[in-house]
């Protein structure tokens, strides 16, 4: 196939900014067939495709793109699903620009192929058009427990159930999906899509037990010694919000991003009072931090009715960790960016509600351990943002519950579970871990990559263990 020289990615049709700030509907509409084919034709079908190496789960990218070009969308979806059990999710929230698209050959001279958008196209096409029946594998293998139903856990479950293992996922919330449900907003990842992927796993035979918090309701040890699980995968995520440790942080109106997003996404506070979980939004909101979570919180605040939303970030634009697309979307929607600005105190009124965020201006000094130039306060530059809500989105640590309640499970000094990156193996035989609880807050696809690796290792471990036993 001869690739046409189209220098830029085909643009993604999207809801206009002035409309979308008033609703929670998905922002990008997705490619139509013609655009998808045209974009697919930009792929050079390289003999040594670098994009596959750039993908944490190793999708055969040129192959699925070729199928789109050939209008064989079902085959495209099948190729995706061969390596990725959540293509509709990854097509939306993966940082492709840092992974597959970053190494795309077309990207050297022009814009890379829009691999993510094509992935989304194929997955959405299948959901809308396919009537392929799910064929469950007979489940005769050993029992495996999966802790947490986020991207890592869902991946492990999907991989192992296909091999005939009897997999049970334990989820603390009343709904499965982990960060895909509570963290990523509806306008970026519709919950119906996550639900569809979960239903698919259920059809394959994965059992999901909700309202079970491993470490409290049942321990890992009990799962293995009393409940007959021969292996356990821990994918409990990064569920410990960091705060700034500045005065006034417990005032009414200060939220962690986790709380702000969980109230909105999982508990649907945007439909309050029909849905009964309240959220206080206020008129002027400051979101501290500049990662994807911060962008999500800022854009959510706007949709919840805030008149003015400010991102407050202590470094410069260049260091903002969020995806470029998310930053662009936020800018289009009218989010204000206050860079080189560091909060030093939350101010409150006489009733204990937030009424301001005191900040200091920063300048960049010498590089620090992260390799980024260290922000240094400018003396005398203090000023106050008059805001009534502050959302702290500066990252999360691993939830300490499982390490605390599992004796013999080794953790790092930051509380992350120590697991071999090649296998996901932890210090306890039969216990594997992956995703944010191991690496710290990362991306959906990296968690899925870790899940894949662990699933292979668990399969190997249980196969050899049971061969020995026979």
């Amino acid at each position: 196939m001869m690739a046409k020289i189209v220098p830029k990615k085909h643009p993604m049709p999207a809801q206009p900014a002035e409309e979308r700030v008033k609703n929670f509907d998905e922002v990008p509409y997705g490619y139509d067939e013609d655009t998808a084919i045209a974009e697919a034709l930009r792929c050079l079908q390289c003999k040594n495709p670098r994009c596959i190496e750039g993908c944490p789960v190793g999708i055969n990218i040129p192959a699925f793109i070729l199928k789109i070009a050939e209008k064989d969308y079902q085959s495209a979806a099948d190729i995706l699903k061969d390596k990725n059990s959540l293509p509709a999710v990854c097509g939306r929230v993966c940082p492709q620009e840092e992974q597959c698209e970053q190494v795309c050959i077309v990207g050297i001279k022009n814009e890379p192929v829009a691999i993510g958008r094509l992935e989304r196209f194929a997955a959405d096409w299948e959901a809308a058009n396919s009537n392929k029946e799910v064929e469950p594998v007979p489940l005769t293998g050993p029992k495996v427990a999966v802790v947490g139903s986020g991207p890592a856990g869902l991946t492990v479950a999907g991989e192992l159930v296909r091999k005939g293992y009897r997999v049970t996922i334990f989820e603390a919330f009343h709904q499965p999906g982990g960060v895909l449900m509570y963290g990523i907003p509806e306008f970026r990842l519709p919950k119906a899509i996550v639900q569809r992927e979960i239903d698919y796993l259920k059809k394959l035979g994965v059992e999901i037990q909700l309202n079970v918090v491993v470490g409290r309701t049942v321990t890992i040890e009990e799962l293995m010694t009393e409940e007959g699980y021969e292996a356990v995968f821990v994918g409990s995520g990064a569920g410990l919000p960091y705060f700034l440790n500045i005065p006034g942080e417990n005032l009414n109106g200060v939220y962690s991003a986790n709380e702000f997003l969980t109230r909105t996404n999982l508990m649907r506070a945007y439909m309050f009072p029909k849905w009964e979980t309240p959220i206080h939004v206020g008129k002027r909101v400051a979101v501290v931090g500049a990662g994807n979570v911060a962008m999500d919180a800022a854009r959510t605040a706007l949709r919840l009715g805030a008149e003015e939303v400010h991102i407050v970030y202590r470094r410069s634009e260049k260091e903002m960790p969020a995806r470029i697309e998310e930053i662009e979307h936020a800018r289009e929607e009218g989010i204000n960016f206050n860079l080189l600005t560091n909060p030093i105190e939350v101010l409150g009124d006489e009733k204990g509600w937030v009424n301001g965020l005191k900040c200091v201006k920063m300048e960049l000094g010498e590089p620090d351990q992260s390799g980024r130039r260290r922000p240094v306060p400018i003396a005398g530059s203090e000023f106050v943002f008059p805001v009534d809500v502050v959302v702290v989105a500066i990252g999360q640590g691993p939830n300490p519950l499982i390490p605390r309640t599992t004796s013999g499970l080794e953790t790092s000094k930051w509380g992350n579970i120590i697991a071999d990156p090649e296998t996901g193996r932890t210090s306890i035989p039969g216990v594997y871990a992956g995703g944010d609880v191991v690496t710290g807050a990362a991306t959906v696809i990296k968690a899925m990559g870790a899940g894949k690796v662990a699933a292979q290792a668990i399969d190997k471990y249980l196969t050899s263990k049971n061969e020995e036993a026979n």
Partner: protein
Amino acid sequence: MFKIIEKQELAPTLKLFRVEAPMIARRAQPGQFVILRVHEQGERIPLTIADFDREQGTITLVFQEVGHSTQLLGALAVGDSIPDLLGPLGEPTEHPEGKNVVCIGGGVGVAPVYPEAKALHEQGYNVTTIIGARTAELLFFEAEMAAVSNQAFVTTDDGSKGHKGFVTDVLQKLIDEGKKPDFVIAVGPIPMMRAVAELTRKYEIKTIVSLNSMMVDGTGMCGGCRVTVGGEVKFTCVDGPAFDAHELDFDEQVRRLEMYKEMEKKVGGEC
């Protein structure tokens, strides 16, 4: 689904449920709580475990109908099920030195203090209990408390039963009589817990109170239940719910509990 197998009306707006929840019953310890949801669009609400029966696989919940969610819960009947119930959450209460303890429960706070008194009594502590309510009609667990106490007292604000006045009056009297306890566990409305804390501070009696903070997940994830203890920020859900009353910033707790007061009035109306 968690089936309700017993329901009692303890007082006009005070309900008791015994619920089938074998996994929770198996691990529950005094001081721990659960989070439940009454229906699909409902909030997640934390409730202390008032009792548990490991053999029968049941837990007991006592709650006051204060808002829409608890009213919906209260409307459930025996045979109905609670769709979502997560637990046991929180750390079991740790006890200071000494064998002489006074357990104080005020209002609906009698429910969470009961399993504490019961456990301490079983462990051979010398347990004195004081339970208080506004009026006799709102008292409950009198017999249950008496059964696990070496000495049991009742107070009502209006004098309709027991001592007329506050739980702190009885505590003060005990101290005056030379029966100063080694430690106190007090659960109830914040003004009551605070009054107990102020009294015991004077006599340097270690005092533990249990908080019912605003929270979403109950596993340390949202940080909504922040509380300042001894100048340090703690999360009620994973570090508590029991804290040293003399170290606790009560003002902050009062304020944070007010956070959604206005908004909550809108729930359950026309929408």
